[in-house]
């Protein structure tokens, strides 16, 4: 490991326990006149959303006013996600009703992108909705480095990630897609980014100025593209990461992870090209193919996975107008 990498790890890697004094964070936030928004993107999360809203709102808005705004942005759930979130006090929005003039696309990245327009905070913190063991550390651990260090632009979570099996918990290491796909790719093309321990974690916080200047893939590639785009603009020094200890979440099937990897690869290859690391992109398919066996015969299953991207929010007229008027 080079000296610079070690220096970055020493200075920019935190543990949430370092930020236990939330009152101190609130004071520093107020001193620096920062506003913080929290966004939870959802799609059919009625089982876990109530707890997330209850705990985060109660602890980080009412007990300690660290968060100024708390929104659940939904992709059109057909369960009671929004009803439950509202009953515990969240502001809820349908992604399709934010910036209606740009249309509606389905995907987590779409909700994250539209949150930049909908929410007012100088810092936006994103937390996935499927965390069974939600705790305030999932938010204060991510926004704290942004409050305390002006040079940090983007903070990523990492965990000891046990998966939720019926027989109990077992450690999964760094996540299967991270270890099998992302880490090898980063090692090949962006070795410095391998310092990010869990590049695909769904929890991160960033300053508005950087979020509004990068494009957002609407699907699986959004976390990867954030890292690659911000790394190109600012280098590793703009990043920090926080150990949030244990995160209990749903286990995804290998098939689902294969489809996810297919989407991430599209984003990655696009970035390799746009950042000049490869000359041209060959014609590639957008159909993900896999097999299943039924009664001794092999059937090919084909799913289309197109990683569409939203442009940087700063390029959207209504956003610029909103920014000017505010």
């Amino acid at each position, binding site marked *: 490991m080079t000296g610079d990498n070690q220096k970055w790890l020493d200075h920019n890697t935190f543990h949430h326990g370092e930020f236990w004094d939330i009152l101190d964070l609130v004071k520093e936030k107020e001193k620096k006149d920062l506003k913080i928004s929290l966004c939870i993107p959802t799609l059919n999360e009625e089982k876990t959303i*109530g*707890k997330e809203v209850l*705990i985060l709102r109660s602890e980080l808005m*009412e007990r300690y006013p660290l968060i100024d705004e708390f929104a659940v942005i939904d992709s059109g759930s057909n369960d009671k996600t929004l009803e439950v979130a509202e009953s515990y006090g969240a502001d809820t929005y349908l992604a399709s009703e934010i910036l209606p003039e740009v249309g509606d696309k389905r995907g987590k990245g779409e909700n994250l992108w539209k949150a930049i327009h909908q929410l007012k905070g100088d810092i936006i913190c994103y937390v996935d909705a499927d965390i*069974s063991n939600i705790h305030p550390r999932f938010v204060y651990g991510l926004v704290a480095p942004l409050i305390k260090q002006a040079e940090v632009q983007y903070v990523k979570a990492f965990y000891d990630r046990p998966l939720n099996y019926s027989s109990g*918990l077992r450690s999964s290491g760094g996540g299967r897609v991270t270890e099998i796909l992302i880490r090898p790719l980063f090692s090949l093309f962006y070795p410095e980014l391998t310092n990010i321990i869990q590049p695909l974690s769904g929890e991160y916080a960033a300053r508005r100025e950087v979020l509004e200047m990068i494009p957002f893939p609407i699907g699986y590639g959004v976390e990867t593209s954030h890292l690659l785009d911000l790394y190109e603009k600012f280098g590793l020094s703009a990043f920090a990461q926080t150990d949030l200890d244990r995160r209990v979440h749903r286990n995804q099937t290998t098939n689902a992870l294969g489809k996810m990897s297919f989407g991430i690869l599209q984003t990655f290859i696009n970035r390799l090209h746009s950042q000049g690391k490869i000359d041209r992109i060959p014609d590639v398919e957008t159909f993900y193919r896999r097999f299943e066996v039924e009664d001794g015969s092999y059937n090919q299953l084909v799913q289309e996975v197109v990683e569409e991207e939203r442009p940087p929010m700063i390029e959207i007229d209504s956003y610029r107008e909103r920014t000017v008027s505010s």
Partner: protein
Amino acid sequence: MMLETTSKEFDLGNLLQDLPTQIEKLHEARKLVLTDAVLLGEVPSPTFKEEDRIRLTVDRFRENGLEDPEIDEQGNASAVLPGNEGRSSILVMAHADSVFDTTTQHVLNVGPDTITGPGIADNAIGLATVVALPKLLKILGITLKDDLILLANTKSLGRGNLEGARYFLETKQRPISAGICVEGASQGRLSYAGLGTLRGEIRLEVPSNYDWNRFGSSGAVGHLNRIINQLLEIPLPKEPKTKMVLGGLTCGSTYNKIPHRGCLRFEITSEADEVIAELQQKVNDLCEQCSLENGTSVKLEVVATRPNCGIPFSHPLVKATRSIMDEIGITPQVIPSTGDLNVLIEAGYAGVTLGLTHAENIGEENETIQLPPLQAGIAQLVTLLQAIDKGICES
């Protein structure tokens, strides 16, 4: 005397009038309790290993601005909300331990009307209500004359034998006018007496040199089965009311190996201490008989005992509690306690145990509490506190 009674009735009447408003205000405020219930309930706290949950509890006491937050030698967490006058104190307590060990996945699921997960009813929601009480009183605009002592007591369940609460009451520094034990379930529960109890384990071991050719030879399962049959044949008096529960059996590990040891857990409860002593002697005799007749080692270990104790049904504290429940529309269910209330009354204090809400699957990993009744459950607690504070519950 007559005037005093009338004045107390008047004061209680005024408190009862406020109940509907209190219940309404508590609908929103209960989120404080639910948050603490989840945060505390997700920290494993088996009896004798309550340290982590207790640490979080005492942190909460500090965050809520209470005086003297401390953890004593038995691991109990306590703190004081000072009253305007502070001449006496009211104790509100909830046990911090649970029956679930640290290997159980302590994840609670929050639905629109329920919370489900190990230990939420017994007693995460009870503990959370005690912890949140100062904030709830503030929201409701209630200040007390007496000091309010909040206690999260340890070593309550099973082999803990109420040691935490017993130690706290033996060493406490302040005068106590009355106490309330808070349990998650079930709403309507009204305990004002402690039931005489004996909890024991019969441990059986077949020695390595056991004569398998002997008449009646058997493995641990066979011997324990015989003991169980003999226990069930012991006549129990109808008066005073007496009950024996065989609560647990551990023996063997597979299909085809004869086990050499086993353990039977049981509880005897009775309204008469002498009946319990008599039954203990019978169980002891039975163990000795089995040992000698079968060449095995059978030992009775008493793990917990409680004498009968109580305050009368007509005690003003019980009467006030019944009036409050009646006003809310809760039907009281008189249940003698085998828990923390026993040590409170044994120590000479008037006390009751209340339940906050309805619950299902208690003791299972899918233990569930109902949220809609919770605000009424908390309101009964708050109003009873006010009644004690106003001297309405003094005998």
